[in-house]
C-alpha cells in the first residue's frame, strides 16, 4: 500500500511538478543553482569523492570559559588558579580534578582541560568527544568571534576600528555568525553562499538542494539563488518527512492531488504567495527523492534533540548515492546555552548531550566509511562573561564575545588549538578582567574577550576544505581580505 501510494504520488507529482518547476524557475530562479550554467572549465570537474560540512549551532551563547579551561600551573599564562580565582567564590568554577586533560602543542605543550561532560558521563551510550581529541580527530579554534577587521584592545576602546554592530545581542550576533559578515545586514548566510557557488559544479544532478537544515529556517542556509531543504529530525523517517498525508489511488484523490500541485503554479503575482508556493514545491520535489530505499544507521544515537538531528543527517549521508549528491552542508542546532542562571546544571546537561550525539555521529561516519569526508563544526552566538552572574545554586553568566569552537572529523588535524595569537603570544586569551584581552574596562569589567580570529577565517578554512576556490573567498566572505590569512590550518590540505 505504501509502495503504491508512493508510486502514484511520484507519477502525478512528477508530471505536474515539471510544469510548476518550469514556471517558477522563470519567476524566481527556483533551484536555479541546479539550472545554472556551469563554467566550461569546471564542467569536467564534478568531484569523484564526497564531502560534507555539518554545522552544530549552540544557540544562546555557550560559555567557552567553562568548556576549555587551563589545567596547568604555569605562571606565564593564565592557569587554573587564575580561572578558579575568578569563578570559584560564586560557584561557577569546575574542580581541577574533574577536568578532562588535553595536551596542547600550540600552548607550549601545556595541559588544558575539557568540561567533564565531554567525556564519559552517567547514563551515556559512548565515551564522548574527549577521546576524539586524543585520537587527533578534534581540534579547537580558540578565541574566535565576530570581527570586521583585526582589533586590539586599544583600538576597541578608542573606537578607531569599526566594531561588529550590536555586540552582545543574541539576534545580531547569531546573524553575523551565520551570515559571515559583521559590518552590514545580509540577506544570505555563508552556507547558502557556498551553495550558490558550488551546487552547479559539484552536484549537477542532485535531487535535493546542497543544504539541509534539521532545525528549521536559518540564515546560515539561505543563498541568493538556492534554498535549503528543512526537514524534521530522525523521529520521522525520511520517507515521511515531506510526505503529504491523505492521498490514495482513487480517481478522486488523484484529481485532488493534481489540483494541489497545479495551484502552486498559479497566482504568483503576490510575492508572499509565490514564496510560500516555492517552498511547498521544493518539498514536493524532494519528497519524491526521499520516498524510496530508506536508509538506517547502525550506531546507536542518544535520545536527545541533537541526537535525533544528527541521526537524520547520518541517514541522508548514507543515502547520498540515491540523491546524486557529492557535496553537502547540514545545519543542526542545540539550544539552551543562554545560561544567565543555573549554568552548572544547564551547561553540563547540554554539553553532555552534544558530546554524546557528536560521538555517535562520528562513529557512524566511521562505520559508513566516510569519516574522512565529513567535518563537523560548532558555532554559537558568543561566549559568556568570565565574571559570573549571581552566585550559588543559580549562578550563571552574561553575554560576551570571543569563544572556543570545536572541529571534528577524520580530515581534521586534531589535538591542537588553532587561531591567531592573542596579546600573550598564544591563541588562548589572558583570563584577567580589565586585562589585555578584555573588551570591558574599569573596576566593573566582566571579562568579555576580544576575538583574535574572525568567524570568516574559521569558516573560510572549512570552506577551502569543502572545495571553495580562492577566487570565491571574497564573494562568500566579503570581509575576508581584512584578515591576514584565510586558512587557520586545522584541516588537512
Amino acid at each position, binding site marked *: 500500500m505504501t509502495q503504491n501510494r508512493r508510486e502514484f504520488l511520484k507519477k502525478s507529482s512528477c508530471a505536474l511538478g515539471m510544469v510548476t518547476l518550469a514556471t517558477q524557475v*522563470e519567476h524566481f530562479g527556483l533551484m536555479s543553482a541546479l539550472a545554472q550554467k556551469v563554467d566550461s572549465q569546471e564542467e569536467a570537474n564534478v568531484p569523484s569523492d564526497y564531502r560534507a560540512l555539518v554545522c552544530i549551532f549552540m544557540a544562546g551563547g555557550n560559555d567557552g570559559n567553562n568548556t576549555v579551561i587551563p589545567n596547568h600551573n604555569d605562571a606565564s599564562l593564565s592557569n587554573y588558579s587564575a580561572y578558579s580565582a575568578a569563578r570559584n567564590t560564586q560557584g561557577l568554577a569546575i574542580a581541577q580534578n574533574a577536568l578532562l586533560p588535553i595536551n596542547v602543542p600550540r600552548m607550549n605543550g601545556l595541559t588544558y582541560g575539557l568540561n567533564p561532560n565531554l567525556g564519559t558521563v552517567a547514563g551515556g551510550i559512548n565515551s564522548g568527544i574527549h577521546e576524539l581529541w586524543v585520537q587527533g580527530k578534534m581540534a579547537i579554534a580558540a578565541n574566535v568571534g565576530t570581527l570586521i577587521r583585526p582589533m586590539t584592545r586599544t583600538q576597541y576602546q578608542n573606537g578607531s576600528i569599526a566594531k561588529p554592530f550590536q555586540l552582545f*545581542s543574541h539576534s545580531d550576533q547569531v546573524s553575523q555568525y551565520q551570515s559571515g559578515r559583521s559590518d552590514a545586514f545580509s*540577506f544570505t548566510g555563508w552556507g547558502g553562499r557556498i551553495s550558490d557557488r558550488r551546487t552547479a559544479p559539484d552536484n549537477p544532478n542532485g535531487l535535493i538542494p546542497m543544504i539541509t537544515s534539521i532545525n528549521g*529556517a536559518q540564515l546560515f*542556509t539561505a543563498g541568493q539563488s538556492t534554498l535549503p531543504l528543512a526537514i524534521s529530525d530522525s523521529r520521522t523517517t525520511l520517507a515521511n518527512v*515531506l510526505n503529504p498525508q491523505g492521498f490514495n489511488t482513487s480517481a478522486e484523490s488523484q484529481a485532488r492531488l493534481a489540483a494541489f500541485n497545479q*495551484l502552486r503554479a498559479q497566482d504568483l*503575482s503576490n510575492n508572499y504567495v509565490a514564496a510560500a508556493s516555492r517552498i511547498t514545491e521544493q518539498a514536493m520535489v524532494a519528497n519524491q527523492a526521499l520516498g524510496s530505499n530508506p536508509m538506517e544507521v547502525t550506531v546507536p544515537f542518544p535520545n536527545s534533540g541533537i541526537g535525533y538531528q544528527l541521526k537524520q543527517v547520518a541517514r541522508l549521508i548514507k543515502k547520498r548515492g540515491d540523491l546524486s549528491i557529492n557535496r553537502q552542508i547540514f545545519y543542526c542546532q542545540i539550544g539552551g546555552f543562554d545560561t544567565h542562571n543555573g549554568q552548572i546544571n544547564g551547561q553540563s546537561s547540554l554539553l553532555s548531550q552534544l558530546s554524546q550525539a557528536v560521538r555517535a555521529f562520528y562513529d557512524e561516519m566511521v562505520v559508513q566509511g566516510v569519516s574522512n569526508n565529513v567535518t563537523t563544526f560548532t558555532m554559537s552566538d558568543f561566549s559568556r562573561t568570565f565574571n559570573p552572574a549571581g552566585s550559588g545554586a543559580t549562578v550563571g553568566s552574561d553575554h560576551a564575545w570571543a569563544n572556543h569552537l570545536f572541529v571534528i572529523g577524520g580530515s581534521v588535524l586534531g589535538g591542537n588549538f588553532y587561531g591567531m595569537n592573542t596579546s600573550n603570544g598564544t591563541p588562548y586569551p589572558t583570563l584577567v578582567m580589565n586585562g589585555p584581552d578584555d573588551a570591558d574596562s574599569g573596576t566593573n569589567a566582566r571579562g568579555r574577550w576580544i576575538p583574535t580570529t574572525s568567524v570568516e577565517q574559521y569558516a573560510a578554512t572549512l570552506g577551502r576544505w569543502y572545495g571553495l576556490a580562492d577566487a570565491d573567498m571574497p564573494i562568500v566572505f566579503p570581509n575576508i581580505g581584512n584578515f591576514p590569512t584565510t586558512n587557520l590550518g586545522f584541516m588537512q590540505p
Partner: protein
Amino acid sequence: MNNRKSRWVWQILSANFLLFLLVFPILAQPDPNPDSPTPILISEPNSTRALALPDSKFLRGNVSRIESRAFLPDSKVVLYVTNLDLLADEGASAFRIYVEDAKGRKYRFPVLDIQPLKGQEWIYALTVRLKDELGFWEEPLADGDVLIGITWRGLASNRVRLGFGKTGGDIKDDAGAVPTPAPTSPIKKSINVEPNYVGYLYSGDRTRFMEQATFGPTSELDTRIRRVGLRTWLAEQFEAPYPTNPYPNLALMPINIDPNTCDAICRRDFYSMYPVQNWFFKEAFYGEAQLKHRVAWALSELWVISGVDTQQASWMIAYHQLLSKNAFGSYRDLMYDMTLNPGMGNYLDMVRSTRNNPNENYAREILQLFSIGLFMLNQDGTLQLDGSGKPIPTYDQNTVNNFTKVFTGWTFCNQACQNSAPGLVNYKDPLILNQNNHDVTAKTLLSYPGAVNQTIAAGQNGATELNQALDNIFYHPNVAPFVSRILIQQMVTSDPTPAFVGRVASVFNNNGSNVRGDMKAVVKAILLDPEARGNIKTDPNYGKLREPVQLATNVLRQFDVQSASGGAQSDGYINQIVAPMGQNAFNSPTVFNYYTPDYVIPGTALNGPEFGILTTGTTIARANFMNTMVFSRVPVSSFAPLGTSINLSEMQTLAAADTTGNRLVDTLNTRMMHGAMSAQMKSTILTAVQAVASTNTLLRAQTAIYLVATSSQYQVQR
C-alpha cells in the same frame, strides 16, 4: 458615543428588529467606503512607455509637451500618476516603486516626493531616484527598458516602461497592458448606490477585517459586522467582557510534586502548558471578546515568555491576565506590569539580579525587544542614518549596565501577598523589592532629545527608580514606531509602508487627548487605516503568511468548529497538531518569539516574519493539519474529553444544490478569499470537485475545502 449604552441598545435591538430599524441609525458610527482608488501611472499617449522627465527639467505645467527618453542610473526622474485620493498628510512615504528588469530581477527605487500639478490637480508628479534600495541584487544594468509600477495602500498600479540607461531591450509588457495617457479631467469615481439601510456592505473587506481583528471569520460574526459596521463593532469590542471562557484557576506548583498525590495526568492538568493551550484555543474558537484575545495574543509574541523555561501553567495564566488587562489600556502600564510579572522575572532573570550579582538579561531585552529596538527610528519606522549612511544605535553596553542596576533587588513575593503560600514560589503576584539588594548608585539611562529621567540620582528607593527608568524608556521616540510596526505586522501586513506606520505611531504618541500609549486608539488606528481596509488588495507585497495558530483557528472557525462528534463545543485540544507546523503555543523557543519581526524570506528581499517558521518540513505539516481536520478530526482521547471537528453540512448542502460545484467554490471564495480567487484557481478546484461523484457531497465539500485551505493563495492573508 457611549459604548455601554450602545451595547445595551444592541441587546434590546437584537430582540426587536423593528425597533432596531428605527433607533439604530442614530447610534451607528458611519463607515466610509473602504476602497481607495487604484493608482494609474501615466504613459505616453500611444505606448506603454512612462511619461517621465529628468527632475532637473521638472516644470509644473503642461504635461503633454514632455518628451520621454532614457534615464541614467541614480538620476532623479519625475513620473506622473493619477487616480489618487490623498489624506492631508499623506506623501511620498505612502508609495513604493517596484522595478523589474529583463532578467526578472526585482528592485525598489526610493520615492522622494509627490506633488499635484498646478491646474491639473488630479495628476501628481512623483519624483523617484533610479537606485535600488533593497540591495538583494547588484544594481540593475543600464542596458534597456525596465518595467516600473507603484503601490499605494495595498493597491498596485499598471506597469509602464522606462528606459534605464537606454531604451529597448528584451523586457515584455504585462499581459493586457495598454497606454494610459494623461486624463484631461479627474477620473470619475464609480458611483456608489447609497444603501437604504445602515450597514457594512463590503463583503471582501468584512472578511479581511475579521482576519485582522479576530481569530477568523464566521458567518455569525460576518452578519453582525454587516449590520453594525466596523466602528460600532470596534466600540462594542472595546467594552466586551473577557474572557468568555474563564481563565483556568490553577494552583501554584509545589517545589516537589508528590507522585502519590499527583500523577502524570495531574501534572499535565495543573502544571503544564496543556490547560493554558486548551483554554487559549477554546477562547479563540468561541470567545465573544475576539479583539481583546487577538491583541493579547499579539502582545504575547512581543513580550515573550515561554513554557519551555518553566512548565508552570499558573504563571503563564498570571502573565496572560496582564496582557489582556492592558490590551486596551496603556502601553506604559503594560511595561510596568510585565516588568514585575514573576513569570517574566524568572524567564529573563530579574528575580535573581542583585546589587552584588547583577544580571543583564532583562535590561537588555526590554530595550531591544519590548520597547525601542537597536537603532534610532524615524517616526514612520524607517531607520535614521548617520552622515556615512549607517544606522545609529539606540544604546550601548554602558546603557545596559545602568539599566541592569535599576532592575536589581526584585524578588518573588513568597510571603504576605494574596497568593503567597508557605514553601511555594509565588508566580502570581507582582515581584516585590528588597531594597538591601538594590543598587542605589546613580545611573545614566537612555539619551534622546528631551530625554525623560536621563539620569537617576543615587540613594533612591528601587520602586521609585523603576518608574523613573520605565518613563525614560516609554518617552523614547522609538517606542511608537517600534511597537506600532510590530502590531501592524501581527494584524495586517508584513511590510507596511512607512506612511501606515507613521499614522499609527502618531496615534501612539498622542491619541488626540494628549495621552501617549493608548492601546485602544492604536488598535483602532491600525484596523481602520486605509492601508488595512479595502475589498481587494493587489500590491504584490501586501499581506502576511498566516502563522500556524491563525491558520488553524481561521479554518476551524470558518466551518463551525465543534466537538469530535458534533453537538457540543470543542475542548480546545488542538495544540498537538498546531505545534508540528512550527508554532507550539506558549512554548516559544526563545525570547525572540517563534519568528522575528525582521525575518527576510530566503531568496528574496521580502520582510515576512511568519516565513521564519515556514520550511519544506512545516509547509507539508500545514497540509497535513488540513488533512486531519477536513477529512478526519481530533478524536476523543484521554487528552481530548470532547475532541474537535468541523461541520460541513452547510457546504454539503451547497454541493447538493449545484452539481457543477460552482456554488460550493464560490462560497469558499467569498468566505475565505475575499472574493479574490482567480479564474484559474477556481477552474483547477472545480476540476477536482467534479472528479467526485455529485452524490458524494461530503467528499466534494472536503475536496474543495482542502484545496483552498492548503493553497498559498489562502495561507497568505492579504
